[in-house]
């Protein structure tokens, strides 16, 4: 457990940002990850007095405060209707209800953890990170960025039309994922002269065990009905293009095999016959 000298519930984001510029101070989210570390913190900066524990729906999407818990997201009706339950599926295996009542979205995204179900899912969505000083960044750019001392204020999710899928493989229930896979089936904009009705699949793979990444689709297009053969090809393409590594949970080749299977299932689930 880390040691903490003083605890400060800040009254503004500016105050949080100022305090956070000192290396010895740290923002606490749910503190679950931080707690496992060692070392001493001069001032623990608590954002829980800033009403950032809310999910707000707007016409074009949702704004999710950094202090929203994983459990709040898991139970959110609007977001789960929009994702067809995929968001809930991404979250419900993380440790336990009591854990998810504490773990925050802000800490989960800021951590950019390789194993993160949260980052894997958000990356498949049209989502953005709002930083106090750094402005709004697409999720992919944020995940690729270096750790700095900015304050993560909100996650923004746009209501882009699409269908979602999520599946993870775990060695045992509540353990970290061996591989995590999220996908979105997105209708392509009708271009002039084209008949429309075409789709692309945005595939995000995490716990490789490195950070979640998007598949470079190489221009793959699907009709509204995806055949088994197309799904199998898509799986093989994903397995060939998503790098994996081995660690104590699984070998690289097992992860690559799983990538192919989960990508195929995603295609079938999203576009196959019911």
């Amino acid at each position: 457990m880390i040691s903490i000298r003083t605890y400060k519930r800040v009254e503004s984001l500016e105050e949080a940002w100022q305090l956070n510029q000192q290396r010895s101070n740290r923002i606490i989210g749910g503190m679950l990850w931080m707690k496992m570390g060692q070392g001493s913190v001069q001032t623990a900066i608590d954002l829980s007095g800033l009403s950032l524990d809310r999910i707000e729906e707007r016409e074009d999407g949702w704004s999710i405060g950094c202090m929203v818990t994983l459990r709040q997201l898991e139970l959110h009706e609007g977001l789960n209707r929009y994702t067809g339950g995929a968001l809930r599926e991404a979250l419900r295996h993380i440790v336990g209800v009591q854990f998810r009542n504490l773990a925050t979205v802000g800490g989960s995204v800021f951590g950019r953890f390789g194993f993160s179900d949260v980052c894997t899912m958000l990356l498949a969505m049209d989502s953005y990170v709002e930083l106090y000083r750094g402005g709004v960044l697409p999720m992919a750019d944020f995940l690729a960025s270096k750790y700095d001392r900015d304050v993560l204020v909100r996650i923004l999710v746009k209501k882009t039309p699409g269908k979602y899928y999520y599946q993870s493989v775990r060695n045992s229930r509540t353990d970290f994922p061996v591989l995590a896979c999220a996908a979105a089936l997105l209708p392509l904009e009708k271009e002039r002269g084209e008949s429309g009705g075409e789709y692309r699949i945005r595939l995000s793979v995490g716990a490789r065990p490195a950070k979640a990444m998007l598949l470079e689709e190489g221009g793959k297009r699907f009709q509204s009905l995806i055949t088994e053969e197309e799904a199998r090809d898509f799986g093989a393409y994903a397995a060939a293009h998503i790098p994996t590594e081995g660690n104590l949970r699984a070998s690289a080749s097992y992860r690559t095999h799983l990538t192919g299977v989960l990508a195929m299932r995603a295609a079938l689930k999203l576009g196959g016959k019911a």
Partner: protein
Amino acid sequence: MLINIVLNGKKISSEIAADCLLLDWLRAQGCASVKRGCETSNCGLCTVILEGKPVLSCSVLAARTDGKRVETLEGLQQEAAEFGAFIADQGAEQCGFCNPGFVMNALALFRENPDPNEEEIREYLAGNLCRCSGYEGQLRGILNYLVWKKEKGKKEEAQ
């Protein structure tokens, strides 16, 4: 720093260190049911109810619970005894160390979802580890308890 917590219905003011964990604070108040079973926020043994929601008391700063309501097993004796009898009937537990956290989270489940099915029970209690049993006895005990509670409710309605 000074905090005010409503513990099992009683308001308590207390001077604490900034990094005092809720678990340690509760034990210092005499709530011996609250135990630590791991260092990784993984076992569920330390479960208490904070503002109506089950949380891991090992992972919450006491400072953050200033002004909030906390319930532990000590405050839920009657409910816990009624429910616990059904677990005991199954001989579900061996050492019993996991029991307080398990009971707290089960009671939290019944508050949130009074009529859970088997899958919902498994999912809600997945974060409560038991090293001795295979969870099957606990599941049978819960199902029996739910049947008993329903019948009790019907009888009370009829009267």
